[in-house]
């Protein structure tokens, strides 16, 4: 008899395809604007790349020659088109400051470090925050709720450099549980990589846990007052089932937004943690390059970070419609 049960009717194909195409066009437009903004950095930032290469006290002929080679005398728009077409081919140019190397290879080595740190830190933060939020919301205002609230407020007030230093002081110096100041690539050895990544990941995660916990807790508390939760209790559902299968999903919209934003911003902004643990990530790459006026690296890194932002935001938008069926209909 199960055969009688037909599949749910899906929206007609062409409509979906058109919507997807529309989304893609939108995404492309945003990326173009972002790339132009990144390119304009070179025009807006103080300092002259030719001066950065030659150093002070250069002969004027050499200066003219370098500007010619770099194409700095061409009109802005043609320089943009040239730069963009190179970037699309994966050529971000070479760094200005020695050791001169391909910007793309520098980015390719730094980006995975930052991405791994950000993703792992967020997963760890969620793994800790979700159960904490659930036990807090289960008896809102109860003892557990108040303890969790006090702890999260405490963590919230500790800056990451303090938390990182404390972790180093305790886990590295005192008990020698973890190594310090060393990074093993994921591709070299997975267990070694995870071992070395743990402390920096924990430091970043600690920063996010209070926000995640408090946000999800308050959304859960609201959802638990809904009639459908009462109806589930009237059906004899155990509390843990109601929490997991009734309350969690409708409470997850704001945390999805916040996790998406955190992921995007963490990729470029973990400088402090990267410095503390000597990690070769995007944050230290950008800060270092910016300090030296190494424009191609800054440009490339900013573009990569900006594109990551846009892509993650698009993913978050898509996630909403997966989580909330009512949005799916609104789009149809």
């Amino acid at each position, binding site marked *: 008899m199960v055969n009688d049960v037909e*599949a*749910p009717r899906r929206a007609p194909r062409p409509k979906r395809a058109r919507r997807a195409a529309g989304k893609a066009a939108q995404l492309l437009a945003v990326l173009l604007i972002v790339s132009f903004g990144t390119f304009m950095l070179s025009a807006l930032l103080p300092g002259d790349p030719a001066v950065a290469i030659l150093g002070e006290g250069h002969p004027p002929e050499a200066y003219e020659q370098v500007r010619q080679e770099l194409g700095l005398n061409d009109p802005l728009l043609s320089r943009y088109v040239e730069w963009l077409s190179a970037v699309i081919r994966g050529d971000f140019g070479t760094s200005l400051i020695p050791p001169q190397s391909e910007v793309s290879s520098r980015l390719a080595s730094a980006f995975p470090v930052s991405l791994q740190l950000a993703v792992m830190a967020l997963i760890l933060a969620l793994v800790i925050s979700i159960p904490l939020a659930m036990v807090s919301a289960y008896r809102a205002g109860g003892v557990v709720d108040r303890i969790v609230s006090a702890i999260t407020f405490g963590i919230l007030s500790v800056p990451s450099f303090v938390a990182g230093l404390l972790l180093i002081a305790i886990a590295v110096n005192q008990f020698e549980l973890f190594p310090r100041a060393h990074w093993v690539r994921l591709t070299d050895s997975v267990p070694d990589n995870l071992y070395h990544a743990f402390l920096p990941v924990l430091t970043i995660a600690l920063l996010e846990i209070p926000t995640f916990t408090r946000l999800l807790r308050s959304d859960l508390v609201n959802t638990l007052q809904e009639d*459908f939760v*009462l109806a589930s209790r*009237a059906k004899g*559902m155990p509390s843990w089932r109601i929490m997991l299968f*009734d309350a969690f999903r409708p409470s997850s919209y704001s945390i999805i937004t916040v996790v998406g934003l955190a992921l995007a911003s963490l990729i470029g902004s973990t400088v402090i943690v990267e410095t503390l643990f000597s990690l070769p990530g995007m944050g230290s790459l950008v800060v270092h390059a910016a300090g030296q006026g190494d424009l191609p690296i800054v440009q490339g890194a900013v573009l990569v970070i900006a594109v990551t932002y846009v892509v993650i935001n698009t993913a978050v938008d898509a996630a909403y419609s997966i989580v909330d069926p009512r949005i799916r209909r609104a789009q149809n």
Partner: protein
Amino acid sequence: MIKPLLHVRDLRTVFQTARGAVPAVAGVSFDLQAGETLGIVGESGSGKSVLGRTIMGLVAPSRTTAVHGTVEYDGTDLLQASPKRRRALLGAEIAMVFQDPLSSLNPVKRIGIHLTETLRQHRELSRSEARKRAVELLDMVRIPEAARRFDQYPHELSGGMRQRVMIAMALSCDPKLLIADEPTTALDVTVQRQVLDLLAVLCQERKMATILISHDLGIVSGRSDRVAVMYAGRIVESAAAEDFFRHQHHPYPRGLLASTPQLDSPARTVLTTVPGRPPDLARWRGGCHFSPRCPNVQERCRQFEPPVEQTTDGRTLACFHPVAPKGGEVNGRNR
């Protein structure tokens, strides 16, 4: 005397609020036999919904909520039973239909899941068996294209359809007791009737005891064996439906029935109302709760609260100065 299926004695639910203690349910007693339908009527704030929820054990005692009294279902005291024992009864033997079918269905869960999760919670069923049974249940509550509805979400259904889903959900494990809390208040009038009739038929087929809670005497009349009228947390009068609609002793239900609009009354007839408002329970200083609005009020009513008493003709009544029947007067009518 047959042992009642549900035996409620002196049930009290008191909420501590910032303004003081509010006894939402203030000493309610009644018995419900298997297969019997009890209609509970009262205006907003009379405590009827809290009563339903307290019986279900959905009003959890806490720092701000106190529950006293006895709710005995088939020999088990629901208020004393362990949470596990109570959960085994809820949904399986005792089920509830709520007022607003949109907010009572989880917006992110497919219709079918609402049914299968109940079935699988209380019955040993495989996924496909549960699905098959769920589609049968949707069919039973006359939802067209049941198999397709199974995979839809609550917002894709009309209000009447949603309430049918709620009913299917409540009846999924063949309960012996159904508490329907204003099951049609959120629905259009035309749909109300369909849903109520469906509910009545299903209850009769299954010999299910039912508590039908409503603010509307018209809904209760013709669908209940007994009628109980609540005011300020107490049952002020209860009687067999036939007796009740023939004559009401308590001035409050009299006033309620007198204010029911009649289709055959002449045009521009001014609708009778019960003057005044329900009392503020947090600020109550004693006396009959209805005394400020009562046409027959005497000095004693303002000082003492009339006890609930059994009358000779099988009613319960809480009134010092009941209205004597004038013989043969019929106020109740079916909608």
